[in-house]
């Protein structure tokens, strides 16, 4: 028998992992935080998540149709973008807002660069940044007092997220002469009570964007992704470590080294950002050192914005800005070749 065989260059076997497997693992890892969001903020959170994901999928399909490319929305990447954008929105947003955000994130953040793999910045964060800049009121109103608890003793200050409380209190304390004694006292109280709120921050019984509040549920997913080796330790640890260090040094009332590092690590979008957005494969460095520097850079920018910037929270912008440095980080952190000088 003359049998002809397939011919191709080696290697002849491939690992079973694939882009869809990676994406659906990320989706799975994000599920606990989503369940938490519905628990803390009600069924409206689920609506927001579904609307955002569907908008992202439709936007991606439209772009691929227009570009006459195969429609690959089943690979899961648009779903990840949708979920991450939804997690960065307050549960109270009007329902058209996530539609616009997802469309902008997918089109301007991803498709115009050539689709998956070619976007320089995280599409979900591009969507969020656009919404923040265009409809800041909708994006910062956290009406829903979380069920089962608030930050203890700080209701006197009318802000919903812990970082907002922190920002206001810090402003009052820095310029204490221009505020009333009562305000200063309240601010001092608030500042001193953050340490008693670690539990609420960790479990997520605080105000905030719908997917960012529960460190516990996010970490559950992060551990799963680390176990599956989809995310590494370098970016999240260097990022969170930098935020902890810098906020310990600079965020306190009693001079340097009096800050509450744990409060800053647990509040805002840091856990979500460090484990699920800064680690986005496409928009983070590929080298060992590059990833460390990337995390440190994110940490520095986050703390600068939180302490001295105009916004209470700086996670999204820090990641977006550091995304832009990735080509340079990769270029200057190339590992020494085996046997190289």
């Amino acid at each position, binding site marked *: 028998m*003359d*049998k*002809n*065989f*397939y*011919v*191709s*260059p*080696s*290697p*002849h*076997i*491939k*690992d079973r*992992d*694939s*882009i869809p*497997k*990676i994406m659906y693992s990320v989706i799975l890892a994000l599920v606990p935080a989503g369940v938490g969001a519905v628990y803390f903020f009600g069924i409206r959170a689920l609506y927001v998540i579904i609307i955002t994901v569907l908008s992202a999928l439709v936007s991606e399909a439209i772009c691929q149709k227009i570009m006459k490319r195969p429609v690959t929305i089943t690979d899961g990447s648009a779903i990840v973008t949708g979920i991450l954008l939804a997690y960065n929105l307050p549960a109270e947003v009007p329902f058209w807002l996530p539609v616009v955000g997802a469309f902008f994130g997918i089109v301007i953040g991803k498709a115009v660069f*050539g*689709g*998956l*793999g*070619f976007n320089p910045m995280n599409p979900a964060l591009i969507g969020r940044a656009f919404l923040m800049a265009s409809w800041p009121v909708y994006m910062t109103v956290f009406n829903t007092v979380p069920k089962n608890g608030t930050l203890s003793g700080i209701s006197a200050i009318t802000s919903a997220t812990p970082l907002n409380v922190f920002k206001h209190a810090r402003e009052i304390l820095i310029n204490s002469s221009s505020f009333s004694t009562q305000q200063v006292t309240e601010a001092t109280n608030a500042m001193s009570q953050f340490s008693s709120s670690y539990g609420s921050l960790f479990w997520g019984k605080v105000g905030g964007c719908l997917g960012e509040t529960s460190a516990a549920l996010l970490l559950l997913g992060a551990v799963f992704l680390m176990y599956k080796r989809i995310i590494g330790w370098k970016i999240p640890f260097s990022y969170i470590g930098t935020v902890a260090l810098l906020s310990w040094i600079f965020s306190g009332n009693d001079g340097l080294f009096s800050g509450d590092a744990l409060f800053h690590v647990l509040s805002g979008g840091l856990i979500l950002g460090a484990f699920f957005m800064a680690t986005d*494969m*496409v*928009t*983070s*460095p*590929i*080298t060992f050192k590059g990833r460390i520097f990337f995390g440190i850079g994110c940490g520095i920018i986050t703390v600068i914005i939180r302490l001295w910037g105009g916004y209470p929270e700086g996670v999204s912008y820090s990641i977006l800005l550091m995304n832009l440095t990735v080509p340079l980080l*990769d270029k200057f952190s*190339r*590992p*020494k*070749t*085996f*046997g*190289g*000088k």
Partner: protein
Amino acid sequence: MLLKKSFKGGAHPPEGKHYSEHKPIETAPLPDTVVIPVQQHIGAPAEPIVKKGDYVKTGQPISKAVKFVSVPCHASVTGTITAVEKRPHPLGAKVLSVVIKREEEDQWFEDYSKATSIDDLSVDEIKNRIQNAGIAGMGGAAFPTHVKLSPPDGKTIDILIINGVECEPYLTSDHRLMVEKPDEVLKGIQILQKIVNVQKVIIGIEKNKPDAIKILKDKISGLKNISVLPLNVKYPQGAEKQLIKASTGREVPSGGLPMDVGALVHNVGTAFAVYEAVTFNKPLIERIVTVTGEGIKEPKNVKVRIGTSFKYLVDFCNGYTENASKIINGGPMMGIAQKNDDVPVIKGTSGILVLEKKQADLPEEQPCISCARCVDVCPMKLLPSHIATYVEHDLIDDAYKLGLFDCMECGTCSFICPSKRHLVQYIKYGKSQWNKKYRKAD
């Protein structure tokens, strides 16, 4: 710093060793025809010294080495030469080959049963015997063994590493050899040791061959200077530079050779061939080939004459399964796919692997998502995705700057890539493009 008993990077492809690892070596009956390419080694081709119509006996030289970096070939059966012409070669292209039609059982060219003690031979005599026997590295790269054993002046070798790693998935020929012929392998090692005059010998074996580790450990218990080093299973641990790193901590410089760090690496199969060549003055006319894979009905380890066709061996293993659709000279990571099974076993053929259709189908390439797995696994610490992208866009000089030629083409990057990108394939193509651009004169 702690001495790490491994190298950085690497991956764990499915091992596939279970098909044949416990199958004792069987001797294939003599084939009716053998096709012996005059080039089965790296270096200058040997020149044929026979012509059509000649009658040759088993072991008779049929080509001679005309340069130092070359080895002769020998008739592997007794019979008449029916052609000296270009024939398909398992490493690609057509190569001048001697075709012998077997006419009878072995008539030996010389008596290969009389043992000579190595103490009666000088180092030069030993090296001559190795070259005359036609031995080239049996691990697959097939570099003439006597050349490797003759380091230039000024290079001192202080450690001999014997490669029993066999990190290529599926292949078990070295494994079986160590289990079934440990004494011969050890004697071969001692001959190599005498030639390069080293005090330290390490036999590196991956831990997935516990029986081989145990047997060799028992056998060396009385011997000074030789030790067995069990290594954690990781591809490509058997690559020369990675094995040196894993067993000694030394890093061969980029573009350099093992001798630059005082090391010399030989495969266990080579040690065995050296033993036969030196002790009995017997030429290399047979080797052990693992015939295996999902596409083979009854995988086996077979002792077979050089020049036997793949088809003959597959038939010896009860033929193909229904879905067999890819046949490979070597293992799945670095082996070379053959268009058909009408190619001969050569000195470097450690295995014949037949894969099924679903394994042979090439998944569609997806865009790189910068997951950096290729970077994490690259044993040469390169950035495979970047090099491949440069090559893809015809930016050969940029690819060169990122260490294009440091790549040893182990294929781990292509294996691991979740986007199924043809990374090592781009890199190989890039090397040929660079050579075209800058080495025209050669």
